[in-house]
């Protein structure tokens, strides 16, 4: 977390080589473990609980799913094994400097050239964009608007015309970058006919994985608050014996349990490919975002002054809760999406 890379390569190797986690949801023929969304979400929940700083969400969740959803057979065989092994880091670039998560707002243009495409424009808020080896970029073909003409493109991060800059950001546990493309050469991932579909599918899967990561984090904060309430003594009694604290903790537990149910249910629905799963992705993202942040706020409150210090780790969870709240679209965006997806 303290380094420019933002993670510990030794831990990443362990997580990849010993536990094979980056490929947990990747089919075996592409070098993965062959599980699905539910198992991927169990992993993100645990990583969220531990607040692991590692390029997992970018490589496994965003890039891994983007390739699975969009790539041709040949591209999946070529790209996925390295990601599944953790040998190569990758990420997905969707949002641009305006911070809009609706792919319709994408302005980066991919112009067909002699040999593939040339990318022009800027992406921002790209998770681990500063360390990724492989970039997957959502862009549009020239002279298209809205959801028309969208597709995913891949290129090596060291390709010509790619300029990357680590952004100064509030959450030190997860790094984001801005990437400018000046006629950078890229290949089409999959085909142009699928349009925005694989992008939306990837974002919805990511929302569910993030919701599970967030409920893991929220549980850790709740545990920390409960433990502190049992230890800290004021007025001759532990603060956990005051009803104002007890009741707040009971409400926090209820909140966390409800958000967990939403996150688990959405993961299950996505794994079974139930028709309503994209709506549930938005439901779970909105629910978990609110709960994670509220639990973080209450956890700091229950810790009192020490909760506001740099030395107490609570602020790291708070900052992860804050960045997760807006990453992939804030709760109000997902509530609106939910209403639309339910046909209200």
């Amino acid at each position: 977390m303290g380094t420019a890379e933002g993670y510990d390569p030794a831990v990443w190797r362990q997580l990849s080589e010993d536990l094979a986690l980056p490929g947990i949801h990747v089919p075996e023929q592409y070098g993965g473990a062959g599980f699905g969304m539910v198992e991927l979400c169990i992993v993100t929940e645990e990583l969220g609980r531990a607040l692991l700083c590692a390029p997992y969400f970018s490589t496994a969740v965003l890039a891994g799913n983007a390739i699975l959803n969009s790539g041709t057979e040949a591209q999946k065989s070529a790209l996925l094994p390295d990601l599944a092994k953790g040998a190569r880091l990758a990420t997905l670039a969707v949002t641009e400097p305006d911070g809009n998560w609706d792919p319709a707002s994408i302005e980066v243009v991919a112009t067909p050239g002699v040999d593939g495409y040339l990318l022009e424009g800027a992406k921002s808020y790209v998770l681990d964009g500063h360390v990724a080896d492989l970039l997957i970029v959502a862009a549009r073909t020239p002279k298209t608007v809205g959801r028309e003409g969208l597709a995913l493109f891949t290129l090596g991060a060291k390709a010509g015309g790619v300029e990357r800059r680590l952004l100064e950001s509030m959450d030190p546990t997860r790094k984001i970058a801005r990437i400018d493309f000046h006629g950078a050469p890229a290949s089409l991932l999959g085909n142009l006919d699928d349009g925005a579909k694989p992008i939306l599918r990837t974002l919805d899967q990511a929302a569910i994985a993030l919701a599970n990561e967030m409920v893991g984090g929220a549980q850790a904060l709740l545990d920390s608050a409960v433990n502190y309430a049992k230890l800290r003594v004021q007025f001759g009694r532990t603060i956990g014996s005051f009803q104002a604290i007890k009741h707040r903790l009971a409400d926090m537990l209820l909140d966390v349990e409800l958000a967990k149910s939403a996150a688990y249910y959405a993961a299950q629905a996505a794994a079974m490919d139930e028709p309503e799963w994209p709506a549930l992705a938005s439901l779970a993202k909105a629910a978990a975002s609110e709960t994670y942040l509220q639990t973080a706020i209450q956890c700091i409150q229950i810790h009192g002054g020490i909760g506001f210090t740099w030395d107490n780790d609570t602020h790291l969870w708070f900052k992860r809760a804050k960045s997760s709240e807006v990453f992939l679209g804030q709760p109000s965006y997902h509530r609106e999406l939910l209403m639309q997806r339910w046909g209200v």
Partner: protein
Amino acid sequence: MSKVNETEVRAEVREWLAANWDPDMSLVEWRSKLADSGWGMPQWPKEWYGRGLPHALARVVEEELSNVGAVGVAKSGVRLLAAATLLEHGSDLQKKKFLRRILTGEDTWCQFFSEPGSGSDLAGATTRADLNGDYWIVNGQKVWTTSAHHADHGLLLARTDWDAPKHEGLSYFVIDVKQPGVDVQPLKQMNGHASFNQVFFTDAKVPQENLVGRVGEGWKVAMTTLAHERRGADGLASPSKRGARVGRIHAEERAETEKANQPYKWYPQRAGRVDLVIERAKETGANRDPHMRQEIAKLMIMAKSAEWTARRARAAQQQGRPQGPEGSLGKLAASNVARAAAHVHTLITGTEAMLTGSGSPRDGIIAEILVSVPAVSIAGGTDEIQRNIIAERVLDLPKEPRFDTGPFRNVRKN
């Protein structure tokens, strides 16, 4: 012993239904058959009107009954809380005397727990029971007793020892409500209905055989009743919407349901009627307002998450975890959902939310929601009490400080 499986159970219940179900029987006659065969409550023990089946298979049986349109055993009101309590703590004589008539619907029950001086603090009951020969003689007052005006029997928590500490001086009885010493007076609620009552006991009699558990164990027995009540609160059974069924038995069931449900007519409204929200948003055009869309989504997210949480708790229970304090989480969630729903119904309805009666939105249902929701966070143990339970039993936080130890006689009271 061979393990029972779903196919066998289905075959067996189908065969039994083919031989026994007849819509022209009388309701009680049919329910007696259900009780005696064990198909009415298949999850109950074999020796007591059940078949000892796991819950998952009991649902299979229910499905088969509903497939042929057969009426089930009586389940409304407090009767199943009474049954659960008797199954756990009752004597064989009590089980024999009461369980069957609970299932046939011949007897109606109520719960005499709350008193004017003790609601949240149930163990502070001062209604007294004194043993005199073969009878316990009951004097005192209960209040907020739902359905007492229809009830044949009441679950009574009364003090039998004033020198013992509060929780150890209570005993639990089944009392006959329809006797001269019991005076039931209806109380009108803020929503205009009168489903609860105040009840005065003046030398009312309880035969010794109706003591449930041992003398002084009343608190323990009451906890069983309450745990079942709280669990029920997260998914109050709504009346099934089966099509018009013909036959004497169906006519009798409709009449009985009408009567039994009379005190509970407004119960769906007190839960907030989340089911109406999206329809109402569409019919009023509120679904075009971005602010309302946000508020509706917030409510729906909470309601759905609560529903899935209840499902997770049930799944855990089916894997053998005992009935625990998670009922309190469900009850607290239900309060939050109901309040949020009342808020959203008001937003959607706007100025018209002031109107009541037949000309008002949804013929008064919306108004009834708004004035019924406050009951949810009080009845069956207040939200604050649920939070205490969750904090102490789930999170293992310190218990409330006590000011009511020592002989009950000396404890400060209202």
